[in-house]
C-alpha cells in the first residue's frame, strides 16, 4: 500500500471509529442514570456546542484569534435572525456580506499600495 492510500484509509478508519461511539452506548433513555444525565444535558447541549463551533469558525485561524470579514457575516446572521428572515436568506446574506467585506478590503489595501 502506498503512503497516500494509507493516509486516506487511516484517516477514514480513525474518524469512523470516533463517530461510532454513540452506536455502542445504551439506546434506551428512560430510567437509567444515562437517561437522567441526557435529560439534564439536552436543553443546553445545542446552544452550548453550537456556540463553541461558532466562536472557533468565526474567530480563529489555527492557533490564532482573528477578527476578519467573517465577523461581518456573523453580525449579518444575527441581525437577519432577529428580523426573522428565512434560514436560507440568512445563510446567503452572511456569505454575501463576508465576500463583500473581503472585496472592499482587498481594493482598499490594493489602492493603498
Amino acid at each position, binding site marked *: 500500500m502506498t503512503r*497516500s492510500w494509507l493516509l486516506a484509509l487511516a484517516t477514514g478508519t480513525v474518524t469512523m471509529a470516533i463517530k461510532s461511539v454513540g*452506536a455502542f452506548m445504551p439506546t434506551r433513555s428512560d430510567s437509567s442514570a444515562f437517561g437522567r444525565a441526557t435529560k*439534564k444535558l439536552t*436543553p443546553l447541549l445545542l446552544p452550548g456546542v453550537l456556540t463553541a463551533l461558532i466562536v472557533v469558525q468565526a474567530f480563529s485561524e489555527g492557533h490564532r484569534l482573528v477578527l476578519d470579514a467573517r465577523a461581518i457575516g456573523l453580525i449579518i446572521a444575527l441581525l437577519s435572525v432577529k428580523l426573522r428572515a428565512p434560514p436560507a436568506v440568512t445563510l446567503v446574506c452572511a456569505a454575501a456580506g463576508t465576500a463583500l467585506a473581503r472585496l472592499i478590503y482587498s481594493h482598499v489595501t490594493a489602492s493603498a499600495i
Partner: protein
Amino acid sequence: MGVTSSGYRRGARAVAPLAIAIGALGVVFGYLARDAGLSREAAVVMSATTFAGSPQFAALTVFAAGGTIVAAIAAAAALATRFGAMSATAAPSLRGPLWKRVLLSQLVVDETWAVAQSGAHGFDRELLIGAGLTLYAVHVASTALGATVGNFVGRPETWGVDAMSPALFIVLTAPRLDSHRAWLTVTAVAAVTLAAIPFTAPGVPILVGIAITAAIAFLTPMNARGASRQ
C-alpha cells in the same frame, strides 16, 4: 411527529443552502489531495470514509508538508473527537441493530448534528438522515469533481462560504435561548472557547466548550422553564 418522510425532507432542506459551502470545500479538498500525491480514487475514498471537512484538511496539510502518517492521523483525530461527543449524545435516538447504529453515527458532523439536535423532541434521527445523506452526497461528489477537473472555485473564502456554517448555527441556536441557563451557557462557552484558542491545539477549544456545557448542565439547578422545554 408522523411516519411521513417529512423529517427526512426537513433535514435535507435545512442543510440545502450549505451545499454551496460544502461543495466548494470538497472541490478544494479533491484538488489539494491530488496536489499532495493522492490518486483520484484515494481522495474520493478519504472523503467517503471520513465524511468530515476539518479532519481531512488537517491530515492532508500534515501529509503534504512531509509529516508522518501518524502525525497526520493525530491531527485528524484531534479535530474528529468532538464527533464522538456528539454521537454519544445522539445514542438514545440511534435505533436498530448495531450495524445500523454504526452506519447512522457516520452521518454525524457539525452541521448534521446541529440540525438533528434542533428537533422538537431532542435529537431526531430522521433529521440526521435527511441532512446527513444530502451533505454526504455533496461532499463525495465535489471531492471527485475537484480531484478530476481541478480547483475551479478558487479560494472559497472569496465567496464568503466560510460564514455559512456559523450563520446556520446562529439560526438553530436562537430559538433555544429561552432560559437563564441557556444564556449562561452560551456566554460562558463563548468566553472560555475564545480564551482556549491561542493556548490549545486546533479542535481542543470545541471540546472545552462541550465540557463547559456539560458542567453547567450538571452543576446548576434546572429552573421551571428549562425543565419544561424538553
